[in-house]
């Protein structure tokens, strides 16, 4: 495709981030909250990797590459880093939720809360 109307990939990223914020604000279940954060990470990653696309570009790897322009390599590297970071954060969050469930017997962010004020 030569020209993409309305920048659909960027639009998808923005909507993903919006939906993720909706989940994080309105869903009281802690697991859903974590899913929201995962979704937000995906949205940001999609935004980053879409920044580097060039029309008709090849992957930036010279092994047997057909002639033509190449897409930008730096956003891909950033996305790679950010994916691993989000995996690490998710693993830690899930561990904490397991622990919270063991202690309070609830996954609701209001019922499992002990500290306020």
């Amino acid at each position: 495709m030569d020209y993409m109307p309305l920048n659909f990939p960027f639009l998808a990223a923005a909507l993903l981030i919006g939906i993720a914020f909706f989940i994080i604000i309105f869903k009281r279940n802690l697991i859903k909250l974590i899913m929201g954060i995962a979704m937000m990470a995906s949205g940001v990653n999609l935004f980053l990797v879409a920044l580097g696309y060039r029309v008709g570009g090849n992957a930036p790897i010279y092994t047997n590459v057909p002639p033509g322009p190449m897409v930008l390599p730096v956003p891909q590297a950033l996305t790679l880093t950010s994916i691993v970071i989000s995996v690490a954060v998710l693993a830690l969050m899930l561990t904490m939720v397991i622990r919270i469930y063991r202690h309070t017997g609830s996954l609701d962010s209001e019922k499992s809360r002990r500290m306020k004020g």
Partner: protein
Amino acid sequence: MLSKIVRTTANQLIVFILIFGLYVIAHGQLTPGGGFQGGAVIVSGVVMLLVAFNAKELKKSLRESGLSIMESTGALIFAALAFAGIATTFFYNVLVGTPIFGHVPPTGANPGDVWTGGVVPLMNWAVGIKVVAGLSAVVLAMALFSSGEEMEE
């Protein structure tokens, strides 16, 4: 523990997953892939074993202290490779031009040569070791914890 068919199949499949993962790690400088991706592929094999057998069985062959040491070693190798160039600067690619992984490929499209990349392939291996050990430790620990097993300190 699932049925015998599943266990036998998993036992056979793990070899192929392992080989594919190692291939992805080893060709990180030539094809899409690298340490993180290949490591993740291998860990998916570990997860398959975890589903087929249970965490208690797997704990016998994968000890957590061993995984911890392996992970530290991988990280240390990575840091040491970065430190290798400190005579010029940190992260300087010292191996370019030497016989080990030092061939400079021709500019532009080429069929690819495994002995290229300088320190990059070695770093890929270090990261691969690290990711395999680290992620399997996490998966194993979570599985052990949720099945109520005691974990070693």
